[in-house]
């Protein structure tokens, strides 16, 4: 009799425990100019000291309201944007301030899929040219094999090889998002930032793209930072989730614990405001009072204080620290002990 083969629990190759990526205290401020002399009059605090790590093969979700800094975080982590301060370690090496030349090998390993499938592809390049460019630049395969490799890539993302001579505008939204994925995969990356890869797509096409990402994760052992404002998608797709509010990481927890163990009032509000796909489970949606504060002039204490149902006096002048709980959960809230 054959013994059942032990199945890897979540995804393969997350064995040795060294995180693939460590982010320490990442800060990103954008200067805001104004006045007659166009001087810097202040800063948008887009990301405010965020720390986390990702293991190989893991998928981490990032969720939060529009403008809370999700895209900025994703771009800083792969150094598509310089950060104001903080540290980024990739496989233990500090890449925060590597020169352009020294950064080159990492550029290949880290890729991004952009939020908008309509504007992120160069409209003047055919699919073939689009993919060839990156493959040649990073010497992914010998020149003689490039054509075969492109066909293989296109098939991997579920398109027909005859699309090679087409331009981006000849594709539907879902197909364009597949091209964006093909372009990211072309250089054989290890780590991908997927910035709202399905938000612009129809529900039925969302499922196709999510399935594709899931297959690729299994096949290539990819590690993903998956940005989305849709909690249902995050829950379905990710292992852990980072909840951001106004540039701050307010909670981190495992997706399978999200419904039962979320502690931060903002995370609970997000869960409560998320409409359930079931007419027999109607419930009053959680409605928060107050408005989203501005990242231009963030409050001194807890950023959520203006809308938080559990707010206390202390919250208004003191920023709660991010504290560790069980199972790697971390929460920043004075009301949680």
């Amino acid at each position, binding site marked *: 009799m054959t013994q059942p083969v032990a199945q890897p629990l979540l995804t393969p190759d997350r064995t040795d425990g060294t995180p693939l990526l460590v982010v320490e205290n990442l800060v990103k401020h954008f200067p805001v100019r104004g006045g007659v002399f166009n001087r810097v009059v202040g800063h948008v605090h887009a990301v405010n000291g965020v720390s986390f790590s990702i293991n190989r093969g893991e998928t981490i979700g990032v969720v939060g309201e529009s403008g809370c800094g999700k895209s900025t975080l994703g771009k800083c982590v792969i150094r598509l944007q310089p950060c104001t301060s903080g540290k980024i370690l990739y496989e233990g090496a500090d890449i925060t301030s590597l020169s352009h030349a020294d950064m080159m090998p990492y550029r290949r390993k880290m890729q991004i899929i952009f939020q908008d499938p309509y504007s992120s592809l160069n409209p003047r390049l055919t699919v073939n040219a689009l993919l060839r460019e990156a493959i040649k630049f990073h010497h992914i395969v010998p020149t003689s094999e490039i054509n075969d490799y492109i066909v293989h890539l296109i098939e991997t993302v579920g398109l027909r090889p005859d699309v090679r001579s087409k331009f981006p505008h000849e594709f539907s939204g879902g197909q364009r998002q597949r091209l964006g994925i093909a372009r990211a995969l072309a250089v054989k990356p290890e780590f991908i930032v997927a910035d709202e890869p399905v938000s612009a797509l129809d529900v039925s096409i969302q499922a196709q793209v999510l399935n594709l990402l899931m297959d690729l994760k299994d096949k290539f052992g990819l590690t993903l930072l998956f940005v989305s404002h849709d909690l249902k998608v995050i*829950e379905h797709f990710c292992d852990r989730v980072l909840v951001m509010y106004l540039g701050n990481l307010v909670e981190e927890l495992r997706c399978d614990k999200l419904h039962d163990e979320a502690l931060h009032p903002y995370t609970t509000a997000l869960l409560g405001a998320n409409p359930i796909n079931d007419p027999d489970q109607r419930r009053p949606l959680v409605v928060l009072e107050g408005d989203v504060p501005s990242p231009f002039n963030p409050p001194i204490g807890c950023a959520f204080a203006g809308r938080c149902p559990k707010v206390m006096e202390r919250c208004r002048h003191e920023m709660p620290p991010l504290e560790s709980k069980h199972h790697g959960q971390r929460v920043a809230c004075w009301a949680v002990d």
Partner: protein
Amino acid sequence: MNAPTNSTAAPVLSVRNLTTSFRTDMGIVTAIDGVSFDLAAGETLGIVGESGCGKTVTSKSIMRLLPEHLTIYGPDSEVLFEGSDLMKANERTMRRVRGDKIAMIFQEPMTSLNPVFRIGWQLEEALKYHTDLNRSERRERAIEMLRLVEIPNPEHRVREYPHQLSGGMRQRVMIAIALCCEPSILIADEPTTALDVTIQAQILDLMASLKKKLNTAIMLITHDLGVIAQVCDRVLVMYAGRVIEDASVHDIFYRPQHPYTQALLESIPRSGGKERGKRLPTIEGMVPSLHELPSGCRFSERCRYCEDRCVQEEPDLLRAEDGRRVRCHFPLSTDRTAAARGET
């Protein structure tokens, strides 16, 4: 074509055989074809379907807001409202209907609010046009309306400009303007799509309480099936310009009869991450182009139950005894749906 009648209330709006075509460079395309349905007072009707299936064209046809010179309505299209057919109404009547009787809110509030005028002024203009209140009464009513849509500090807010408000507040101002004259119908085309879930919750909550207070009938267009499940009474599913199913929200979610409705529901991740990491069922292929519609059932190329008859002849939208309607030669039985969902 019979539309289901709501036994409790006479419909405030009856759409019959609404067919809308456009003149384009590639000839005439028919965007919606024979759309019929009723809307009862106080009812919230959801309209869902993939991008391009005709949801916006349906609502703009009802309001006659499409460019007249490019638009051709079918000869037997009727939009029956308060005893008359809006399809035959002149522009003057239509202008009174819009805003006074049937109000519409769109997805992007920033493009519908005028950026150079104060919020209060915009509300007062709407009141001036649709009511005979005097100036100070209008000012008072404007503040009252902002309070109704739960804008904090309305006395102060009337003096602000649109850019000084958050996205959620702007959308609430739009709703306030739409509701100025207590319309009997509110058409909301993706009113929360551009907003975050916490703000979306505010808007949905607001629409629910207005419906209670004013008995407004609501037509809610959204691609978010969670929103449909939480707020709608009945759902119209559209596909490639056709109504393909019309049933109560419970039946749509638990006993869909059209294969497209079934497939659409399967493709959304379950709430609570119940099937975390599993592949989602998908609908392969694409919506047919309006220029080359299949001769039979418009869903046939993607339907997993497609048979010869489906390719040859387009099914009619048939109405069952319980009032449900479905356009399919082989509507799904309850058992089949349950089996496909894996919940026998």
